[in-house]
């Protein structure tokens, strides 16, 4: 069940929809900025992020704060992450609906019980590497609706999902036959708001 779900999602992320135009051409008058809200994805039960894009929206860079409350599973976790991704492709589906596939990574700094950037003095030097920083690559798909709203200050509203993993899980996957490839991946979903109202799209 888990394997078929992940295979389906990867295919979904990478498939081209039939589109009205061959590619998305942006006419960006000024750099777009994004805000996003995310559920899950190695950064918390919920997270908020702010970011911007470069090179005609082909590269994204953002900062995330996520929180997992102790009331859920007895462990409170704060996460600060740097997020970056590259756009694999983008397509225009309808006059105001666009889709894109992305590949990127988070660099997560997790703050919880017994995670350290630098271990306390009672540990001998070099006893452990830091367990607070992890690299979490992902593959994602986004659908964006152009909805220029002067009142809300947003020009696009998006919905996305990502299939992600973590450096430690990948290392275990490559060193052990006992771990299934589908057991090292997990999902996240979220919404994005493009908050630069000067952005417009040309077909």
């Amino acid at each position, binding site marked *: 069940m888990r394997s078929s*779900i992940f295979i389906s999602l990867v295919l979904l992320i990478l498939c081209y929809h039939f589109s009205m135009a061959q590619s998305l051409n942006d006419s960006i008058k000024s750099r777009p900025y994004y805000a996003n809200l995310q559920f899950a994805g190695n950064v918390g039960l919920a997270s908020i992020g702010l970011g911007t894009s470069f090179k005609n929206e082909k590269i994204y860079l953002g900062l995330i704060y996520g929180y997992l409350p102790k009331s859920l599973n007895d*462990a409170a976790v704060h996460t600060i992450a740097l997020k970056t991704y590259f756009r694999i492709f983008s397509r225009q589906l309808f006059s105001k609906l666009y889709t894109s596939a992305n590949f990127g990574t988070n660099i997560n700094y997790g703050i919880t019980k017994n*995670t350290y950037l630098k271990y306390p003095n009672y540990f001998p030097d070099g006893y452990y590497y830091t367990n607070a920083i992890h690299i979490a690559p992902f593959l994602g798909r986004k659908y964006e609706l152009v909805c220029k709203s002067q009142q809300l200050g947003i020009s696009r509203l998006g919905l996305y999902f990502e299939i992600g993993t973590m450096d430690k899980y990948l290392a275990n996957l490559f060193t052990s036959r006992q771990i299934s490839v589908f*057991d090292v991946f997990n999902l996240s979903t979220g919404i994005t708001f493009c908050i630069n109202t000067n952005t417009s799209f040309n077909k």
Partner: protein
Amino acid sequence: MKRLLGILVTFLLLLGLNSCEDLFQYSPYDADVSKTNLNARNIDKIAPHNPSDTLWFVALADVHAWYDELYDATLKINQLKNISFVVVCGDITDEGLAKEFEWYNSVMKNLKVPYITIIGNHDYRSNGSVIYKKMFGPTNFTFNIGDYHFIGFDDVVWENNNTLPDFEWLNSNLLDTTSVVEVGFAHIPPWSDQLSPYFEEVKQLINREPDHTLLIHGHEHNYGYKKLEAHHIIVGAVNRRLMVLVGLCDTVYVSRKIKF
């Protein structure tokens, strides 16, 4: 129409997936576990022991991320006869992550006999101690099989916020018995790095009846044996492909290294 269908399929899939909780991971440091209280449940599954027979068990330690070797160990143990249970003397994970605890359990499910898990210093990292207590139970515990008394003792110091082990608990649970061998499992040997400042205090506790006390440890990754009044066996890490078979017969014990 096809575009619309494609988009509809995507959203329905996402809607459906939101109900599949185990597909979403909130954080690698989360303490969500699929099984609870495993030590007590597995101890209940240990078959009753005939007092006239030798009680056999197998000791492993320091699994970390050597799941292939651990799996091979379970295959070997399943070939052995008359094994009552298996004990893993700590460090079943590397970073104390919930995923690592689950992977350990999924390999150990291959065993045909019950297994008991002791906490190690690596298992305390991140939220590992929270996860261990939910998944396995208290870090200090005792159980009896027939007349034999077993102790699982948490002697982790540094990773437990540099906190002293609960020597009072150990003192009150060690039996002053000479009728049978008493067996204790503790990940860190008393002479080892974290416990060496408290070595004399520990020695006084465990050497009340030294000829009837067998202590089994991990942590050092190499097999070893020491008689410091009481008897100490150090089980090697699973990647050394050695396990220790222990047999208890009243006041006598035997032990043998087995390659797998």
